[in-house]
């Protein structure tokens, strides 16, 4: 099983995302922003970082890259897509997920080990977790505050598309403490926290994040 990991100029966490994919037992295939072909991958991770410097708006310029045209098309055919941090911002800018991510309410970059509750476990990326599981993974972002209009938020809640929620001291002022959401099918997921930095207790606060990548394998096998 092959999982594509996209690199834009300014992407930082592609190495970690690829490592997490391999640890979960899949093959990581690196995709370049100029690629107009997904090289036969079964799923795509859009990793974190500062694509195009995050200039203008986070994720805005990346959402127009040639590779994203392919990702949007493949997502439309049901291919699982995960956006982490800057990847989440890119998926929102590309219109694959609703809402937007704006400057943290505290105006500072926040890097911390963040407790989260897994609210929904029937997505392609969270099947390994028990409903209501509490996990700790790094959060590191300047524009991590999820916003959408009330109607959209109500729809997300109503359809059970809030995948992850922040616990404890609110890190960034996200509306309804939303840390991650999905599309209606549960195959496209975006999240601000970094599960790829929590795959080994040697280098992260826990290995709680590995479940995200193992979930994908389960989802693909069960198809």
């Amino acid at each position, binding site marked *: 099983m092959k999982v594509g990991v996209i690199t834009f100029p*300014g992407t930082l966490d592609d190495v970690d995302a690829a490592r997490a994919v391999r640890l979960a037992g899949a093959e990581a295939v690196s995709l370049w922003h100029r690629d107009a072909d997904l090289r036969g991958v079964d799923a795509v991770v859009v990793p974190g970082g*500062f694509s195009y410097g995050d200039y203008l708006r986070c994720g805005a310029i990346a959402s127009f890259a040639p590779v994203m045209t392919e990702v949007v098309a493949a997502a439309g055919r049901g291919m699982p897509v995960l956006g982490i941090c800057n990847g989440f911002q890119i998926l929102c800018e590309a219109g694959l997920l609703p809402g937007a991510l704006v400057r943290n309410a505290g105006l500072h970059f926040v890097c911390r080990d963040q407790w989260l509750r897994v609210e929904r476990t029937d997505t392609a990326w969270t099947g390994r977790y028990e409903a209501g599981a509490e996990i700790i993974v790094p959060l590191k972002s300047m524009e991590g505050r999820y916003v959408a209009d009330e109607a959209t938020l109500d729809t997300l809640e109503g359809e059970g598309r809030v995948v992850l929620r922040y616990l404890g001291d609110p890190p960034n002022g996200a509306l309804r403490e939303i840390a991650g959401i999905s599309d209606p099918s549960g195959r496209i997921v975006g999240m601000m926290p970094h599960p790829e*930095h929590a795959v080994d207790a040697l280098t992260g606060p826990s290995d709680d994040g590995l479940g995200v990548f193992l979930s994908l394998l389960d989802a693909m096998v069960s198809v």
Partner: protein
Amino acid sequence: MTGNEQSVDTNSADTNSAATSFVDTVEHARATPDTAQPHRELGVKDDEYQRIREILGRRPTDAELAMYSVMWSEHCSYKSSKVHLGYFGETTTEEMRSTMLAGIGENAGVIDIGDGWAVTFKVESHNHPSYVEPYQGAATGVGGIVRDIMAMGARPVAIADPLRFGPADAPDTKRVLPGVVAGVGGYGNCLGLPNIGGEVVFDESYAGNPLVNALCIGSMRVEDLHLAHASGVGNKIILFGARTGLDGIGGVSVLASDSFAGGDAGGGRKKLPAVQVGDPFAEKVLIECCLELFGSRLVVGIQDLGGAGLSCATSELASAGDGGMRVELDRVPLRAAGMTPAEVLSSESQERMCAVVRPEDVDAFLAVCEKWDVTATVIGEVTEVSEEETARGGRLIITWNGEVVVDVPPRTVAHEGPVYRRPVARPADQDDLIANDTSGLARPSGPQELSDTLLRMIASPNLASRAWVTDQYDRYVQGNTVLSQPADAGMIRIDETTGLGVAVATDCNGRYCRLDPYTGAQLALAEAYRNVAVSGAVPAAVTNCLNFGSPEDPGVMWQFEQAVRGLADGCRELGIPVTGGNVSFYNQTGATAILPTPVVGVLGVIDDVHRRIPSGIGNEAGESLLLLGT
């Protein structure tokens, strides 16, 4: 060479893009020997100016004067510190040298850490720019040290930032500290370099002169070590990265001012802000581009462009190589209209590198740059030098639209600047200061007072939690951070298969150094050494950033000399070499110098990072607490 500590004029005036078209060529300089030149305004002393004239056998052109002035500045030439720094070399034994692949004099020191891996690390200051414009000053400080590390052929893998500010409640600290922290974070986070350590110290003496030191560690395979030199006649010089603009030109703009060269018609640009603005995204792309170039073996020699811009890169590359170089300066891609050759040579625009490339590799080199959207331009080549020219220090010729504007022996620019043996005198107040010890201070008298004192101490700015700072830094990126805040030393994994890693700690207590700079520097060394040792790593090498007041003050010079001797003697005692460092003088407000602050960084090696020792007690029930030492 990265930092820029020259003074900054913040009164910007209009930039005149239609600057004078007159260019001061070598030919013109020969024909007009008596033209007055603004050497003093550029910080060149009368006798230094005379020496330049002697070296060249004529007056320098504007462009040459710009080059000499910046390269012979304190910051670039180490003219006041050189005679003292030699002591580091004298005290380094063969055994200490055995793991050192590059030492003092290179962009950064490199040590062999085994298994075919080498690690390079260095700390630099960006103090004055960070006071003028805290965010950009700190950001470009990080950018500069990272390019130093890249210039060794290494992948930058971690940064740390020893910082010093005025009192926490001083109004200006509220301006400086948040800006500096945001700048270090803004730049470092965007580069994808984990921040694994540093210091935050508050003291009155830094109120008008904060210290922003930045450390970077890089790793590489031993065979990939690149040294900055331009050798191989016919090899091409390629400038790549950002375009060159008017930012950071500062003093040199005097050459384009009304009173010189330009005349009324020229309408010079005076008083540009000497502030550089960083573009971390451009630097991130430059890092990846460089690593791909190194990996494809397309680079013979490489040099970063920092404090002295192209003046430094061209003269250092040439003098460290075969000695001959010819550069067509008008090929440099510019960001501003009407720049003069002197301005192009002095620009401190960030995010640029200069490489020496074999002619047959040029196309492949440019293709890699194209892939990363990095602008790259062949600006010159390595040239043959005669024996006679070599004896004079090589020959660097720079042309501007076909006319020669620079024709100098590059060694005289890069390595043969003035050397001063400044007067040294133990400060008159030193004895009084030492006599005024703590014996007269009241001691806590009972348990209540003791516990109050403890609480007050814990809450004091110098001991309180640093989370406000460190929470703004990404410590996870790259997935190799094994120890970071809170920790005695930061530690990162270098090799994922074997677990080989390195640890680093920086320390300095300026108050101890003020009382006794010799022992104070040794205390800083001992503390950093201990911090590395208790993390489980074996200390292996030392870097330093020597932050002091004015070298023209004999008392400061005494502090400096003592600190260097203390540090060098301490290193010999411990058996680890100083592999590099940085000197920052003129850290003072009026006549008052900062506390002498020789920041010491120690790097250690650990065979397997799984055996790291995290700090903290109480992780398991039944632990025993032992006190070691006296």
